[in-house]
């Protein structure tokens, strides 16, 4: 049954590519803006055989991963602190509520001012954007722990630290992973923004250059690669989730 669905989804993708081919072959869309799939494939093959594409793909993927990992680490740590400590919530929450709705793009000039057109700037932009979904869902996860379980841990005589580690954290884990999943999507968006604004070598910056040079096959090749990075990371998160929250 699963195999049938798998082939059905493949067939659907093939249909989309077929329509695309049809649109460019009949001249429905100008080849300057919409290249034929075959030309995009050529651009991908050329990019990979010259060795330029793998390097850019690697750089972009590494940025997504590092920025996202940083955001997740900070988001979970701070979220857990706010989730379990009333005092932390009182101190920290108002500042966070001010920072949270700020669009990351508005803060990019500040990051550039602080860090220059550097690798760290791009990572900071990604981490800042991906931090929020992670933080909010972690706070939610910790605040949604079944109150009865806190009573159980009191009656059993668990220490506060054991309670956090053995009851609150595992209980919040599904929410934490959901937040990390959203954070990863945000990271993928922001890596493009960061590369374009910081002129850092990578798929995102490549797309901008291709567009400026009217090299639409290269532009589409970049978009397809970004899509694949997103797809692969979604699969990785699914795997992580199925390992960590088997009980659901």
């Amino acid at each position, binding site marked *: 049954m699963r195999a049938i669905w798998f082939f059905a989804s493949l067939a659907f993708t093939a249909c989309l590519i077929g329509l695309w081919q049809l649109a460019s072959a009949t001249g429905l869309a100008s080849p300057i803006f919409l290249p034929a799939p075959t030309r995009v494939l050529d651009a991908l093959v050329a990019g990979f055989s010259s060795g330029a594409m793998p390097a850019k793909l690697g750089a972009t993927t590494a940025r997504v991963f590092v920025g996202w990992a940083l955001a997740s680490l900070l988001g979970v740590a701070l979220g857990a602190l706010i989730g379990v400590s009333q005092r932390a919530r009182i101190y920290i929450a108002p500042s966070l509520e001010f920072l949270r709705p700020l669009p990351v793009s508005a803060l990019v000039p500040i990051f550039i001012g602080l860090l220059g057109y550097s690798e760290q700037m791009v990572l900071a932009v990604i981490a800042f954007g991906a931090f929020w979904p992670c933080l909010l869902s972690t706070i939610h996860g910790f605040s949604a722990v079944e109150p009865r*379980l806190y009573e159980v841990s009191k*009656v*059993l005589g668990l220490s506060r630290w054991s309670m956090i580690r053995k009851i609150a954290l595992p209980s919040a884990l599904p929410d934490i992973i959901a937040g990390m999943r959203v954070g990863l999507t945000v990271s993928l968006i922001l890596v493009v923004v960061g590369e374009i604004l910081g002129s850092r070598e990578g798929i995102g910056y490549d797309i901008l250059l291709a567009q400026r040079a009217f090299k639409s096959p290269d532009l589409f090749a970049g978009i397809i690669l970004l899509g694949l990075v997103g797809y692969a990371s979604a699969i990785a998160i699914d795997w992580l989730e199925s390992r960590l929250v088997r009980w659901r």
Partner: protein
Amino acid sequence: MDRVIQFSNVSLAIGGRHILDDINIDIARGEFVAIVGPSGCGKTTLLRLLAGLAAPSSGEILLDGTPVRAPRQDVAVVFQDYGKALLPWRTASGNIALALEAMNVPRDQWPARIAELLATMGLERDGDKRPGEMSGGMQQRLQIARCLAQQPGVLLMDEPFGALDAITRQLLQDEVLALAERTGMTVFFVTHDLEEAIYLGNRVVALNASPGRVARTFPIDLPHPRDQLSTREHPTFLELRHDLFSFIKGGTGK
């Protein structure tokens, strides 16, 4: 009398509303006391005070002569909502292990202790199941097993069988009776099921509502071991049942 639990002049008011008023109950070691009363009479609150999960506004609760200020590891609590009181991500064995962790039992003793506790509650083949894969009755057995891991001198049970079907309820009633007899535990059993209270208890304490007060105490003079058929048909049982039902119905007693 070897007094284990002593409520002396215990009152509780929350926001000016009197929940419990001047409660005085003495419980002897090994006694099985059932607390009954209309809903909202504060019987669960009484149990929470005894567990150290809440503090009275005035008066004192003594456990082995020491005032209760916080939960104690030798006092175990069986909550009614077993579905919420168990860790859904841990197996049955893992849930019992939680208590052993809290008790600082050396890790190498865990497998033997867990196996023994599972067997005590008839769960010997379910150690690897998660609560979500178990029936309500099995989950409540598991919660009792986790309480037994604390080797408690006092077991507090808050309407533990209220959510179970009639047959499972009767089975568990008999198991808890046997367990209490074997271990010599003192049991403080809150229920709204009057027949259950008579069937299980050495004594039934009936509370009045708003504010909760000890209205009457019924000594239960029924032979042990109790039996679901003969005990429930015993003339004394029927008489007590009549008294308790008419008392609760009338609100004040005969």
